[in-house]
C-alpha cells in the first residue's frame, strides 16, 4: 500500500541544505581544549578589562563543578569538552582596520548566505532596512548601519566592543537575566563566549529599523559560544532578528549561546529567530549540537518581550526562550515552530514566570516531526503568590508525518495564587494520505502539498515573523521536510 509509512522510508538524498558550503578562510585558533589559559587567551584576544577576565574565570570554576543536564529527551554520545577549539578567528578578516574594510572572502561568504555587509554610512534608513552584526566563528566581522543607529542614540555593536567601550552597562546587565550558574551550558558560555551582539535602546527611542545578528560557523572542530545582550530602556522598542547556518560536516559541532533581554518600564522587545544550523544527514551523521539559553526579563511595569522561533536545523536542539514577568502588567509571548526530520532531536519550549500583578503570557507551539526524529515540547508556567490576576494561555500542537517519529509534550503549571487563570490546549495530528491525495487531485504535487499543509499548520506562528523573515521561513519549512514523504 502506497502510504506514508512506506514512503517515509524512501528518503531521498538530503542535499537540500543550501548553506552547507565551507568558505576558504584560514583561522587562528586558541589551543585545543578548555582550561584557564584558554580563557585568558580569549580574554586577551578581545583586549578585555580585568573585570571580564575575572568574571570568566569564576564562571569556569563554577562550571567545573556542574553537571551536564540529563532531564531532556535527547540522546547523544558524551561531549568531549577538551576535544574542541573554543576560539577560531578568521585570519586577516579586516583588510584595512582603519577603514573597516573586510576581506573579500568573508563578503563573498555572506553574499552567498544572502546577507549584505555593505556599510554605506550615507544610506538613508527606513523600516525596510536591516542592520546586521555578522558573527563568523568567534568574531564579529562586521556591523552595518552602526552610524545611523548611533545618531538616534542606539548602541549596536559586537559585545567584545561593548565590553571595552561601555564597561558600566556590561557590568550592570551581563548575567542579570541569565546568571552565570543558571545552568551548565550558560556557565560554559559565560567562561568562554567569544563574540555576539550588544544592543542598547535609550529611553523613548523606537529603533528605526530591524536589528539582526547572523551567526555563521565555518571552522571545523570548533564550538561557537556567542553572547547577546539587549537592553531596552524605558518607553523604547526594538525588533531583533537572528539567523544562523553552518557547513555540512560529519562531525558534530557544539553551539552554546546565551541571549539576555532586559526590558525596562513600557519597553517592548520582539526577538525572532530562524534557526537553521546544519541538521545532520539522513543517517543522523553530523549536525550542530545546539544548547542555548535565552531569557528575557520584563523588569519594568507594562513591558513586553516576545519570542518567535522557527527551529528547523541542528541535530540536537535544547532551547527554552523564557520570560520573567516581574513588572506589573508586563507581557511575555512565545511563538514556536519546531520541525525535526531524519534523526534530528529537539527538546524545546519556554518558561513564563509571573511575578508581577496582572501579568499576561501566551504560548503557541507547533511541533512537526518527520522521519525518525524526536520532537519534545517542554514548558513551565508559574504564577507566583503576588502575581494576582495574571493570565496564561498555552496551545501546543504536534503534527506527525509517518509513524517512525515521536512527539512529546511536558507542560508544567504552578499556580500559587487564587486570582490567576491558566488555559492549556493541546492537539496531536497526522498528515493523512487522504489530505495529500486531495491536494494532489487539484494538480499540486506532493512536495508542494506538504508545504501547504505545514505552512497552514504553522500560520499562527509565522505571521508573527517580520515579513522578509516569514517568506524565508516558509520556504525553509518546505525544504526541511523534503524527502519525508514521496
Amino acid at each position, binding site marked *: 500500500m502506497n502510504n506514508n509509512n512506506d514512503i517515509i522510508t524512501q528518503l531521498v538524498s538530503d542535499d537540500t541544505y543550501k548553506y552547507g558550503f565551507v568558505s576558504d578562510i584560514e583561522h587562528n585558533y586558541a589551543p585545543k581544549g578548555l582550561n584557564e589559559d584558554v580563557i585568558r587567551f580569549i580574554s586577551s584576544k578581545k583586549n578585555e578589562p580585568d573585570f571580564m577576565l575575572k568574571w570568566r574565570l569564576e564562571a569556569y570554576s563554577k562550571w567545573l563543578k556542574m553537571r551536564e543536564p540529563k532531564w531532556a529527551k535527547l540522546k547523544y554520545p558524551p561531549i568531549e569538552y577538551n576535544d574542541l577549539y573554543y576560539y577560531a578567528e578568521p585570519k586577516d578578516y579586516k583588510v584595512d582596520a582603519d577603514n573597516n574594510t573586510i576581506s573579500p572572502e568573508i563578503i563573498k561568504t555572506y553574499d552567498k548566505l544572502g546577507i549584505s555587509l555593505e556599510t554605506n554610512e550615507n544610506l538613508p534608513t527606513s523600516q525596510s532596512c536591516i542592520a546586521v552584526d555578522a558573527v563568523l566563528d568567534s568574531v564579529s566581522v562586521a556591523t552595518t548601519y552602526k552610524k545611523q543607529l548611533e545618531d538616534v542614540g542606539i548602541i549596536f555593536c559586537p559585545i567584545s566592543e561593548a565590553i571595552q567601550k561601555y564597561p558600566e552597562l556590561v557590568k550592570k546587565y551581563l548575567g542579570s537575566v541569565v546568571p552565570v550558574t543558571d545552568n551548565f551550558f550558560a556557565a560554559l558560555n559565560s567562561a568562554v563566549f567569544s563574540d555576539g551582539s550588544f544592543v542598547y535602546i535609550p529611553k523613548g527611542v523606537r529603533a528605526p529599523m530591524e536589528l539582526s545578528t547572523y551567526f555563521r560557523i565555518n571552522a571545523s572542530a570548533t564550538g561557537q559560544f556567542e553572547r547577546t545582550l539587549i537592553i531596552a530602556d524605558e518607553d523604547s522598542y526594538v525588533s531583533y532578528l537572528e539567523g544562523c547556518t553552518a557547513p555540512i560536516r560529519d562531525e558534530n559541532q557544539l553551539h552554546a549561546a546565551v541571549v539576555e533581554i532586559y526590558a525596562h518600564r513600557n519597553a517592548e522587545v520582539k526577538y525572532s529567530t530562524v534557526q537553521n544550523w546544519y541538521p545532520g544527514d539522513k543517517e543522523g551523521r553530523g549536525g550542530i549540537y545546539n544548547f542555548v539559553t535565552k531569557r528575557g526579563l520584563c523588569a519594568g511595569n507594562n513591558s513586553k518581550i516576545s519570542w518567535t522561533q522557527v527551529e528547523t536545523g541542528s541535530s540536537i536542539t535544547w532551547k527554552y526562550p523564557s520570560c520573567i514577568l516581574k513588572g506589573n502588567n508586563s507581557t511575555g509571548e512565545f511563538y514556536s515552530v519546531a520541525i525535526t526530520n531524519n534523526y534530528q532531536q529537539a527538546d524545546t519550549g519556554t518558561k513564563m514566570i509571573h511575578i508581577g500583578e496582572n501579568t499576561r503570557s501566551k504560548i503557541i507551539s507547533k511541533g512537526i516531526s518527520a522521519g525518525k526524529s524526536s520532537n519534545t515540547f517542554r514548558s513551565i508556567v508559574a504564577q507566583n503568590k503576588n502575581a494576582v490576576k495574571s493570565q496564561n494561555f498555552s496551545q501546543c500542537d504536534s503534527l506527525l508525518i509517518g509513524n517512525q517519529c515521536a512527539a512529546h509534550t511536558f507542560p508544567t503549571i504552578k499556580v500559587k495564587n487564587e486570582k490567576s487563570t491558566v488555559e492549556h490546549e493541546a492537539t496531536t495530528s497526522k498528515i493523512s494520505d487522504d489530505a495529500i*491525495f486531495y491536494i494532489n487531485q*487539484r494538480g*499540486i504535487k506532493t512536495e508542494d502539498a506538504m508545504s501547504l499543509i505545514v505552512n497552514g499548520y504553522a500560520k499562527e506562528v509565522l505571521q508573527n515573523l517580520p515579513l522578509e523573515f516569514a517568506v524565508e521561513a516558509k520556504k525553509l519549512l518546505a525544504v526541511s521536510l523534503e524527502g519525508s514523504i514521496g
Partner: protein
Amino acid sequence: MNILSIKNLKAEINNTEILHGINLEINSGEVHAIMGPNGSGKSTLASVLAGKPGYKVTEGSVTFCGENLLDMPVDMRAKLGLFLAFQYPIEIPGVSNMNFIKTALNEIRKYHNQEPIDAFDFYELVKAKADLVKIDQKFLERSVNDGFSGGEKKRNEVFQMAMLEPKLAILDETDSGLDIDALRIVSEGVNQLKNANNAYIIITHYQRLLEYIIPDFVHILYKGRIVKSGDKSLALQLEEQGYKDIYND
C-alpha cells in the same frame, strides 16, 4: 472526441477485488450518470480514475484524452484535466481557499506552459465562479473546508471545479447531504459549466439529482460490473422498481 476509454478495468483494495471488469466510453459533451447500491464499486471507480493510493489495478486499461491514465501520478491526472469532486472533502487548516485554488490553478497553467494568472484576472475569475455557485467571497478567505458545513464543502468542490475547468469532472455523490436549495445551486453550476468540450461522470444513489442535471447515459453498477446502460429513463425505471428488478433483468 473521446475523453475517457475504460477497458476491462479490474481493481482491488487490500487484496479484495472490487471492480471486476468495467467498460465505459465517454465522449466530449456527454454527461454519464453512474448509479448503484452501497458497495457496488461506484466510489472505487472514482478513486481508481483519480489515482487514490491504496487501490491496485490488476487488469485492463484507461485512456484519458489519448494518454495512459493509469501510469500517471495523481497530480498529473489533474493537470491533464481530470477533476474529482470528493464525497468527503478534506479540511486544510490555515490554508485559505483563495491561496489553495490559486496554487492549483497556477500549477495546472504551468503544466500547459502558461504564465501564472495575473492577480486582477484571478480576482475577476473568482468573482465570476463564486457567483455561479452562489458562495460568499468571505467564505473564500476561510481555510479550505475548515469548519464548513457539509453543504458548504460540496459547494466548495463545485467552485473549485468551476475555477479549474476540467475536461472530465467526476462528481462522487455530490448530492448527498445537500438540501433541495443547495442541490439546485450545485446543479445549475454544473449545467452552466458543461459544454461541447468537457464531460461529466455523476455518481449518485438517487434519481433526484438527475432531475436537475440531465444525463445522456445512465449506467447501473452492481457488484463491480456495469450491469445495464441506458438513457435517462433508466434512472426513472430504477426509482420506480428499485435495483432488485433491474439486476434480475
